[in-house]
């Protein structure tokens, strides 16, 4: 069955608008996705029907808020195939999830231990580990990529050692769209006894994430890249690993017993969730997951594939355009530069034509240096984009190229 994109788009009120008299063509989905009406309704319903703090109420509103909030956790657990709901930790987003892991591992690393990341890392999945290593005098090893943006699997294997304590890598590269073979890489790392952390920020919205099948220990992602609200995300951790994971923030909600002298910690998941959580965010994120789960995933994936294929084909035929990142397994992202033009200039002219893309270093400065570019222009696609919009992108690019020449 093919995806009815027209009907789908009607569920996203924001997409119907015009920018400077041109229809909005939103191709910045790797930065954040738009939100369907179902998500907006769920957030509105929470605030209009049952806004109250969770877990502590002695009244009906708090009971209802707690019920919706904890049901949201069940939705996430089910969506990613967690072993149990206690493995789902609410965070403010992928970055916080990775920081919870980095903070914990920094307390356990010994001098000379090794942490491995890749050259394609987003700063959130690089600076975190770099700082953890600096604090504990561990060694940060960076697995190289090939020129096409694919990970050097052989190097990955060779660089693993008996001292490798943790391996962190993205499911999908935000700057290049490279899909990493995370199941295979996780298995290699596990053989050495390392913990495996997947930055799932870009992977989650393309569907089919099964944390058990991947075999990793942590998988972190954000709600807002999955059609949900900003300020909410999830750190999934394997129960046996999370069980005694060092606490992150301290305060209310996460304790068992407190005296003026000392405190004991509560049970998972609350132990890693200090303070009043983002209740509306969690409920909105679950609404997004429920909405997404009702779609025909195969049709979604085939549509996304078509969008990228059409974009890639037109990009290759475009004189003076260079695609940055052409790994064989790629999803959702077309990163490129136009000869003689700075990506920011290209972005300006596209913006003026109603086309939203991202330009710059994509929070991956070392990767840009590795690829020898100051930055790229990046068009990123989601299930509600159309092939017509891909055509609009290239028409607008033609104009940008002419104006900037």
């Amino acid at each position, binding site marked *: 069955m093919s995806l009815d994109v027209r009907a789908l788009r009607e569920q996203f009120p924001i997409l119907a608008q015009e920018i*400077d008299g041109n229809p909005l063509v939103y191709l910045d989905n790797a930065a954040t996705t738009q939100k369907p009406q179902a998500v907006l309704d769920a957030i509105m319903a929470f605030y209009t029907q049952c806004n109250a703090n969770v877990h502590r109420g002695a009244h009906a509103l708090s009971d209802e808020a707690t019920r919706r909030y904890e049901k949201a956790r069940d939705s996430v657990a089910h969506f990613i195939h967690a072993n149990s709901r206690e493995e789902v930790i609410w965070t403010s987003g992928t970055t916080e999830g990775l920081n919870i892991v980095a903070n914990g591992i920094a307390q356990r690393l010994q001098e000379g231990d090794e942490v491995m990341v890749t050259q394609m890392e987003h700063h959130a999945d690089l600076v975190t580990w770099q700082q953890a290593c600096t604090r504990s005098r561990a060694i940060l090893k960076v697995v190289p990529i090939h020129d096409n943006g694919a990970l050097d699997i052989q190097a990955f294997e060779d660089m693993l050692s008996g001292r490798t304590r943790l391996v962190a890598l993205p499911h999908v590269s935000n700057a290049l769209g490279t899909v990493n073979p995370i199941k295979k890489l996780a298995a290699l790392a596990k053989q050495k006894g390392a913990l495996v952390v997947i930055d799932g920020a870009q992977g989650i919205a393309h569907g089919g994430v099964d944390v058990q099948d991947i075999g990793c220990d942590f998988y972190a992602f954000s709600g807002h890249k999955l059609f949900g609200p900003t300020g909410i995300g999830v750190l999934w951790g394997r129960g046996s690993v999370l069980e005694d994971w060092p606490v992150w923030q301290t305060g209310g909600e996460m304790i068992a017993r407190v005296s003026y002298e000392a405190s004991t910690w509560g049970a998972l998941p609350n132990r890693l969730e200090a303070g009043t959580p983002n209740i509306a965010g969690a409920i909105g994120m679950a609404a997004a997951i429920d909405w997404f789960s009702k779609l025909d995933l195969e049709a979604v994936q085939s549509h996304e594939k078509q969008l990228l294929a059409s974009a890639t084909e037109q990009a290759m035929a475009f004189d003076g355009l260079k695609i940055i990142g052409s790994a064989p397994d790629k999803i959702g992202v077309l990163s490129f530069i136009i000869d003689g*033009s*700075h*990506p*920011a*200039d290209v*972005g*300006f*002219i596209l913006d*003026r034509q109603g086309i939203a893309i991202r*330009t*710059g*270093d994509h*929070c991956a400065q070392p990767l840009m240096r590795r690829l020898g570019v*100051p*930055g790229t222009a990046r068009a990123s696609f989601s299930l509600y984009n159309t092939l017509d919009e891909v055509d609009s992108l290239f028409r607008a690019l033609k*104009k940008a190229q002419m*104006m*900037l020449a």
Partner: protein
Amino acid sequence: MKLPGSEEIVDDLAFFDDWEQRYQYIIDLGKSLPPMDEADKTEDRLVRGCQSSVWLKAHRENGVLHFAVDSDAIIVNGLLALVMAAYNNKTPEQILTFDIDDYFQQLDLERHITPTRGNGLRAIVSKIQDIARESR
């Protein structure tokens, strides 16, 4: 092309009625902005935006501030030329009394100078104003 003054720019831009001509004008301004010597593009003169980078060099002579600016993006250079038309070779008093937001509004370019744009333009304006304040 000699860089025009700020009033002249406001007049010029008002003359165009479509965005393409306006942006082409800004692009041409950007191309005519004298480039900064590579040797002057030092780390301490760099204002980094996440989309593009801008360098600013300043010196004072006979009570007047002289600036050199450069960017790796041509439209940012054009916008910098607009900023230079307002600020370059002016006294600190002139700089501090000039209403830059109103100027960009008249140019209908205010969205490029908002702090949210990662092009370094706002940061350059703030830096020039700081220098003017210190040189008073």
